[in-house]
């Protein structure tokens, strides 16, 4: 279980690609921020606060994208028994959790001027909060089980069970929201958003995704190094 199919091939690929990924990330951030802060016009209704959307929406996208990556990696680990897939899922979780927290924090900062309250039980924010709990649960299970082989097997189940439940939770929260509040007049962007606002949003989304890719590759690399060290320590203590 601990021997890696081809970590060396993965490491050389990652080390080769990382500089380019960082370069693309920086460029995308530069363009995105310029678009978000300079060229995008203030909203006729919300004024400047609509610019929070450019950090809130990409973070929410990434929070969902990363959990999907974790669920896919866990599925790959179950079907193909590939140990690198477990490492990918384990290292993606903290990054996803930070994006999820950012989505909640910026959402709350956006809610204060809009609805006058730091936290509003709006459908999207509530689902995001539950997603954050799924992240916390996943990370906690890795810490709770010492033996990495068993921790990997249990974490896969947690990721997949969580992933299956995300659409159900989303559906039930939307139902709950429509039950208690008339459709909120406030709309967080969406298809009718002006093109001058849309392209910075997409660029920022891409920038966040590349940032995740870069951080994920580095985290996988350090997890492989840590495990290699632990295996060497076990091997050395065995033949003493």
């Amino acid at each position, binding site marked *: 279980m601990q021997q890696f199919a081809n970590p060396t091939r993965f490491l050389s690929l990652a080390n080769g690609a990382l500089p380019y990924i960082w370069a693309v990330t920086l460029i995308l951030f530069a363009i995105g921020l310029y678009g978000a802060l300079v060229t995008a016009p203030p909203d006729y209704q919300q004024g400047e606060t609509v610019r929070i959307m450019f950090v809130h929406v990409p973070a929410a996208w990434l929070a969902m994208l990363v959990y999907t990556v974790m669920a896919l990696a866990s599925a790959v680990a179950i079907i193909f028994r590939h140990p690198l897939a477990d490492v990918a899922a384990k290292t993606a979780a903290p990054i996803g959790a930070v994006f999820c927290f950012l989505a909640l924090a910026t959402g709350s900062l956006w809610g204060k001027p809009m609805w006058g309250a730091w936290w509003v039980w709006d459908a999207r924010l509530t689902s995001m909060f*539950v997603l954050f*709990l*799924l992240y*916390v*649960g996943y990370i*906690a*299970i890795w810490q*709770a*089980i010492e033996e990495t*082989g*068993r921790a990997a*097997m*249990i974490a896969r*189940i*947690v990721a*997949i*069970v*969580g992933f*299956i*439940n995300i659409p*159900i*939770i989303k*559906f*039930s*929260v939307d*139902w*709950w929201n429509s*039950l208690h509040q008339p459709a909120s007049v406030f709309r967080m962007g969406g298809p009718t958003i002006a093109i001058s606002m849309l392209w910075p949003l997409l660029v920022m989304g891409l920038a966040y995704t590349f940032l995740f890719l870069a951080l994920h590759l580095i985290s996988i690399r350090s997890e492989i190094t840590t495990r290699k060290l632990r295996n060497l320590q076990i091997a050395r203590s065995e033949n003493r």
Partner: protein
Amino acid sequence: MKLLGALLRRDLILAARQGGGVGTALGFFLTVLVLLPIGIGPDQITLQRLAPGILWITLLLSVLLSADRIFQQDFEDGSLEVMAMAPASLELVALTKAFAHWLSTSLPLSIAAPFLGVLLNLRTEIIWPLTLSMIQGSLALSLLASIGASLTLNLRRGGLLISILVLPLYVPVLVFGMSATTGNPEVIMPSLLILSAIALASLVLAPIAAAAALRAYLK
């Protein structure tokens, strides 16, 4: 199937004889039912408005509290290993044990809850939908709790971890359980139907996840 019947009978006898599971869940239920009005205040109108929510959340937490008892004892005394070598698949064993937990703990609570609702001045016309939703909902609660129980089988702070893992899965059950008690008729039927859909889905999916986790711990 006879062997699953034997397992179900044994678990129910154990639950009755040890009384641990049912007792603690019921005790917890009554304690919260007393504490909440003290915390919220005795005003009848607010209590009446909050009553279904209080009953549902207390049921949910009571099931969660007694959930780690589903597999823990059998794992510790080695019965689970022998059960894994029985002619029946581990999924069916996990399903039977979760079903036994439902029969012995969640079902009695969900039947008792509406009558205890009197303490909270529960509106009489929603007692019937509340009971129906709780009976179906508690089955889903027990099955989802069995997933949490199997995932945190042998862990030191398992109790804390089980709530983080399982509570997000309880959100849909709570939402549709509550929407069945809002009183306007055309919402009640869809909520009850969706609730039974969730219960049936967990009846199929929960044992698969639970058995996979049990196998990981038996390795």
